């Protein structure tokens, strides 16, 4: 976990330095802002991982772990689910409504809401299978 954190933090630090140098040197706001924001994307998850890596034991995958240590319950993975397709279809209609008319937002939003409710309910049951 420490290594993951370090990679993100070093990337964030690099972008912060590069963004500052670029912004001061060029005086161009869009690019300077975008690189600094890139730095934030390094710092935000990076510092979260760092915070956690100091508060948890070293995971088996971060040391010479034995395969048996990973045996057992990993997580509940839904075996099958229709809701990704429903959500995708809803997004499709929503985007088409930008082109062909706002009425397409009605089926689009309908599918999205259905997928959101259905997907959450499915997660509570722990997947369909």
């Amino acid at each position: 976990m420490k290594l993951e954190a370090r990679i993100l933090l070093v990337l964030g630090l690099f972008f912060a330095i590069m963004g500052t140098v670029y912004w001061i040197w060029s005086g161009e706001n869009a690019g300077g802002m975008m690189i600094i924001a890139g730095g934030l994307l390094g710092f935000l998850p990076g510092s979260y991982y760092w915070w956690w890596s100091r508060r948890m034991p070293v995971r088996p995958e971060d040391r010479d772990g034995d395969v048996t240590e990973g045996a057992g319950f990993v997580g509940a993975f839904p075996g099958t689910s229709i809701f990704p397709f429903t959500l995708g279809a809803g997004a499709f209609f929503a985007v088409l409504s930008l082109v062909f008319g706002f009425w397409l937002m009605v089926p689009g939003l309908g599918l999205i809401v259905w997928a959101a409710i259905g997907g959450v309910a499915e997660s509570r049951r722990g997947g369909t299978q």
Partner: protein
Amino acid sequence: MTAVISPDTHHDDAHEAHEHHGPTGVLKWLTTTDHKIIGLSYTVTAVLMLVIGGFFAELIRVQLSAPYEHFLSFAQYNEVFTMHGSIMIYLFAGPMAFGALANIIVPIQIGAPDMAFPRLNALSYWLYLTGSITMLSGFFVSGGAANFGWVGYAPLSNAANSPGAGADLWIGALLLTGFSAIFTGVNICATVFYLRAPGMTLFRMPIFTWNLLVTSILILLAFPVLTAGLIMLYCDRHFGTHIFSVQGGGVPVLWQHIFWFWGHPEVYILALPFFGMVTEIIPVFSRKPVFGYKGMVFATLTIAALSLGVWAHHMFTTGTVLLPFFSIMSLLIAVPTGIKLFNWIGSMWRGQIWFSAAMLFAIGFVITFLIGGLTGIYLASPPLDFFTHDTYFVVAHFHSVVMALVMGGIAGLYYWGPKITGYLLNETIGKIQFWFLFIGSQVFTLPLYILGLRGMPRRMAVYPNNPGWQHLNEIATFGAVLIGISTVLFVVNILVSWKKYPAGDNPWDGHTLEWFTTSPPPHHNFYRLPQIRSERPTWDYNHPEAPALTHGTHEEK
């Protein structure tokens, strides 16, 4: 379904637990959350897009084979080159890189039962598919498909200069595929960070998985910027904002900043996964561990870090960018890329090379990428770029790069295809396909470099005042035909080899975990796992007698 990773000793019992019963047929395809089936859907869709985009490429080459050809009208030509670029970049290369083989191979390489968010993974595919349909449907609306080039520069892409639904469909398609990419990036990051098998430390991960992790971080940095830019463009077109138009106080060059802030990292988002595939293939077929493992990883990270500071080398001639900064950063990227090239050569050096089809494509990748990479170094220098900007020299440069990536992708399909389907592809047809593709790529791109230096501009349908350009264009068209034949040979190979040559679990004597499981892998990938103590766990398991040698030595000391 609950995933259980079982130790080596209990695999017979675990076999029963892994049996998966679900819907079949179309319903299985619609409802699956299995990363292997989603990855296969990605692969089939992306290859289909390659064929469509390649067909448009052939149309362009036919049009340019004579100075005043009437094969396509000017309007059709604009649509065709726009859609060729858009399909190849947004709908083929990107999804092929981080959606197709990545989806199938990354979880298996780190010993995970699936991606971290299986349903999000399925959503990524549906957004990609609907995005592809959205973009292609531009051909069926009045006014035709988008015709402002794959970069959609303002003010050409505004409502006055590009009216019609085709342009809006293009924007909508990029919104959908952009979100698809972002979700895949989140998924791969979470999978690599949280679902590795015990013992699989970060510095034991296969280079392919490393490259996909870095690619995913780059996706998260770059794609939201494009999505934001597209929303601004849509608002300019329909809601009366003036973000990119001078009339209302906007800045047209801002679109170029936003677009290329996504666009140049995108080049590495496309390239890094294929670098990873080749880095997997070359050591396996050289019978050696990869040369300079950590050097490869740090080179990948350095490329990613630098790639955020090079976008404006596409904009040197706008006269509004800081030339020395972008020139220095662009030239610096050559250093980690050079490290990778030397490491590929080092991996082959004094190995027992097996020239299988996959290995040939990988070597073809290295050579073609070297040509594309070196000409990229010229373009990073502003004086040279002022001379060659918007000429066929640039077109030749990035076509060398992407033809290399196509070779890398096909190498990956020959290498991992048996793992995915359980059946090998025909090696002889594969080798013939390689020579058509490799020779065709060079015959296609090399004349374009000369044409560029002679001043032939991009995106021109005719060149009646410069008939001297015809011969080189004819040679390039001939190269494009060879590439087309290689694509047909690939389809023929799939048909000829259909369920004919059973592969077995480990046909290449591979190094990494995917060669430890069955072909195709079971529902949650593994019945058992080996101990992971190096970056080659499967090799260590199969060759306990083989000592770990330092590079350059021949025998155990």
